[in-house]
Structure formats: C-alpha cells, structure tokens
C-alpha cells in the first residue's frame, strides 16, 4: 500500500514537472476507454484487450501442449535429453521478436499470414520458459523413488505417470505462469510491427502515430500491466488449489 502511494506521488511529481498526464486524468480516460469506443480505431479498450488476450491464450496453449510432454520426456530419459536438449539450447537464446521477419516469409503462403505469424511469435516466447521449467523439475525427481519403483517391478508408464508427472506439477505450473507472461509481452510487441486491426499493441502504436494522445498510450500500457498481473495471480491461486500438498 505504501509502495503504491509512493508510486503515485512520484507520478504526480513528474507530471508536475513535465507534460506527462496526471494519474487522475489517466484513470478517467482509462475508464472512459473501457466502454466508449475510441474515435480513431472505433473500438473500446476492452475489445483490444480481448483480441490480444485471445491470441496469447491460443498460441500459449499450443506451446504448452508441446513444451510439457517434451520437458517431462527430456527430464526422464537420458537418451531423449541428449537428442533434444542441444536443439532447445541453441534456439532458446534467440529473442522471439527476431523471428518476426522470418515468420512472415515462412507463413506467406497461408491465409492470414500476419495473425499466424503473431501466434507463432507467442508460441516461441511461451514454449522455452515452460519447457525449461518442466524439464528441470522432471529431471530433479529423486532417483530413490524411481529405483524403489523398479524394485517393485513398476513399468515405465507407471513411473512416468505416478512418479515423474506428479513431481513435475510444480514445474508445469511455474512454466505455464512464466510462459504466459513472456507470451503476453511478445504479442504486444508483435502487434506493434504489423497489424490485424485490433489489439493493445496496435492501439498504442496508432495512438502514437496520430499523435497528441499520451493519456491513451498510458491507458494502454496500464491495461497491459493489469492483465499481466491478473494472469499471474489467477494462475497462482489455481496452483494453490491443484498442488495442495505444498
């Protein structure tokens, strides 16, 4: 609470010294934009948010459905790890946004190139953090558990589903949380480079291009922060429900 007050005080101080809009003005405009369509693009802030959020959720869901099984397999099997990890490790340091031009070329022949490319960028952004997190927790399953299971003649399937998977739940949950956060950052940036007519990144860029709309830009940025914060907290409370033994 004290932090928030301090933050607002700093903001007022900066606004007082510069042309930066005051917090209460931004808040008013923000609330207005939520329900009243903005005149240039003819859409409300909620519509832009929904558009961006949809893209992130779809692409991240795809990313997780690859990253989680691959992460568990790589954590469990030494063979699989030696095959797969070098590929992941060499692609991982590439920033998702660096893929944008290439994505346009790869997907040029498919309809909706730009949308598909944006989804692809989010996929890349969400995949790697999730994979690493799942992989790490799967690999750290205590050896004793697995050896014990083997003594009792458990087959691979049982070991995988009853020992490694539960042990990886924490990693999966963290992976989804971090993956979504990175995906959310990626979509905003991807929307600023090419457009499909709506989305928070696009909104902010157009407001800048038309000019004189700092409050709108700050409102858009605030929305990005709010959604990111909400996503994180939502997933944290999910985690508490699912992983009760923590």
């Amino acid at each position, binding site marked *: 609470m004290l932090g928030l007050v301090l933050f607002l005080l700093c903001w007022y101080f900066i606004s007082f010294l510069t042309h930066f809009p005051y917090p209460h003005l931004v808040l008013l405009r923000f609330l207005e934009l939520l329900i009243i369509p903005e*005149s240039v693009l003819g859409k409300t802030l909620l519509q832009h948010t929904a558009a961006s959020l949809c893209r992130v959720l779809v692409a991240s869901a795809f990313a997780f459905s690859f990253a989680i099984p691959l992460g568990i397999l790589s954590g469990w099997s030494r063979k699989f790890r030696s095959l797969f990890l070098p590929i992941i490790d060499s692609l991982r340091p590439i920033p998702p946004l660096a893929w944008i031009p290439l994505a346009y070329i790869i997907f*040029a*022949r498919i*309809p909706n*190139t730009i949308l598909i490319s944006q989804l692809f960028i989010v996929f890349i952004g969400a995949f790697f953090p999730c994979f690493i997190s799942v992989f790490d927790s799967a690999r750290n399953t205590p050896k004793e558990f697995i050896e014990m299971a083997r003594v009792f003649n458990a087959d691979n399937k049982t070991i995988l589903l009853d020992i490694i998977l539960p042990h990886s739940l924490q990693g999966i949950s963290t992976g989804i949380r971090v993956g979504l956060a990175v995906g959310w950052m990626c979509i905003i940036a991807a929307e600023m480079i090419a457009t499909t007519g709506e989305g928070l990144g696009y909104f902010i860029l157009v407001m800048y*291009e*038309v*000019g*004189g*709309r700092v409050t709108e830009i700050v409102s858009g940025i605030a929305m990005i922060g709010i959604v990111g914060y909400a996503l994180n907290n939502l997933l944290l409370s999910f985690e508490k429900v699912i992983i009760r033994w923590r």
Partner: protein
Amino acid sequence: MVEQLKLGEIDAFVAWEPFVSEAVVKGYGRILVTSSEIWPNHPCCVVAARKGLDKDTLTAFVWAHIKATRFINENKNSDEILTYSTEFTGMDKEVVKQALKRIKFVEFPEINEFKFYFNKLKESGYLTHKVTDLGYANEEYFFKDFINEEIYKHVAKKLRTNSSWKPRSVNSTLRVGYLTADLHQLAFYVALKGGYFDEVGLRIIKKEYPNGVYEMEGFKLGEIDIGYLGSAPATLKRVNDNVSIRIIAGVNNEGSAIVVKEGINTISELAGKKVAIPGFGTVQDFLLKLAMEKLR
C-alpha cells in the same frame, strides 16, 4: 502493401507512387480510381522547416527546390528524370515511368485543399488540440504561420522577373530528412544531383526516414532542419504534439490511387473487403472515405 496484395492478405490498398505503379506493373492489381479523380489537387508531400532558421538559408533552399521542381516539369528532361527516378527509388524504369504520369510536382500546395484536409481531421476527431491551445488567435493565423508563403513568394517573384536569378550564397549546413524510395520527393534528389544546393552555398546532410511520423520525431529531437514529408504527419504532429515546424514549399499534389485485385470493379464492391491504408488520419485514409462518401 504491395506484398500484402500479392499474397492476398488484403483485397485493395490506398497508397502513393511508386507503389501504385509497382503493383500494377507487376500484375498484382489494377487501379480502381486515382486520387486526382477522388479529390483533385489534394495535398500530398511538402517541404517543412524547423523554426529558427534564418531567412537567407531558407531562401537558398527554396530556390534550389523550385529549380529542381521546374526541371522535373520540363518535358525535354524526361529521359534524365527517368534515370534519376530509378536511381532514387531503386525500381524498374517501367514502374517509375507510369508513376511519374500520376504525380503532379508542384512548388506550393493549394492552401484551400489543405484547409479542407485540416477540417476533415477536425471533424473525424483526429486532432486533440485546438489552434488556440497552440497559441494562435484563430485558424487563419495558424495557417498563415503553418503554411508560410513568404519565402516561396519572394523566390517566385524574383524568378519571374529574371529566370536566372540566384539568391545570395549562404555557406551553411542543413540536415535534410526525406522518405525512403518516395518518388514524390524526387525534387530533392534532382537538386542534389544537379548541384543546385552547392550553387547557393548549402551543404546538405541527408537523413532517410521510413515514414513521416518518424521524420516528425526527427524534427522534435532536433535531428533535422528541413524535411520532405507528407502533409498528414506534418499536420497531425504539428497540432497534436506541437512539433514546431512550418511548411515552406510544396512537393506534389495528387499521386495516390486505390489499387484493387482482380474481381473488384467498382468502389461499391469494396464494401466488406479488406482495404489497407498507410495510417489513420493520412491523406490516403481520407481519399478512401471520400470515395465512399461519393457513392452515397
């Protein structure tokens, strides 16, 4: 946009030359209607200058610009212009040849059309400030300052009495912004190639921008003294962000078009189709709106 039309991402676009001709010559689309048919003499590119440059320097620059514009409009120079155009834009001869036909190179914009554009911006809610917020008593004063005829008129008058008149040599350096491969701004290239700036003692440092919004940012940050750019970013950023510039000469009127892919034959068939525009509040944005309004 040319690429997007080719890929079928969009059904049509409104753009300026040489991109209209590029799409046509490469066979990706055809011209549905040119901007001269929709809005005759509509403003397009202009020469803008930051405030605070001395009059002699501005006069020298405007003189070189006018000389280049007149050179372009002279029929006997058409071969040379064609070569300059391909060099400047990096496009095929066939493309620039077609494009040149649709551009009206001018020395000064039509002020009334400019006011019409300004009013359109105002009506559509693009402007966040009134001219009184910028310290002008009314719009008349604003336009007098924003579209500054004084220097152009002085140079034009001198040239009328003596066509080989040359302003005083100034010995100064100007940083000039322009847009990548924008054929409208050919006069700048011609003036450079023809040595017109040297003749009046101007040293030019070129600075290329991908679009007018960034070029206005360049003005704001003090990166350039003079710039060739579209009237849209010039007006929007002048009013909305109070970037302190004024227009000192024209570059061209018209020179845009609505380009469509196969199967669209009338403006009304654009309904429900994906039409790309270079940006909200741009002249091309309004060209499309005006074309639609004419239908009603």
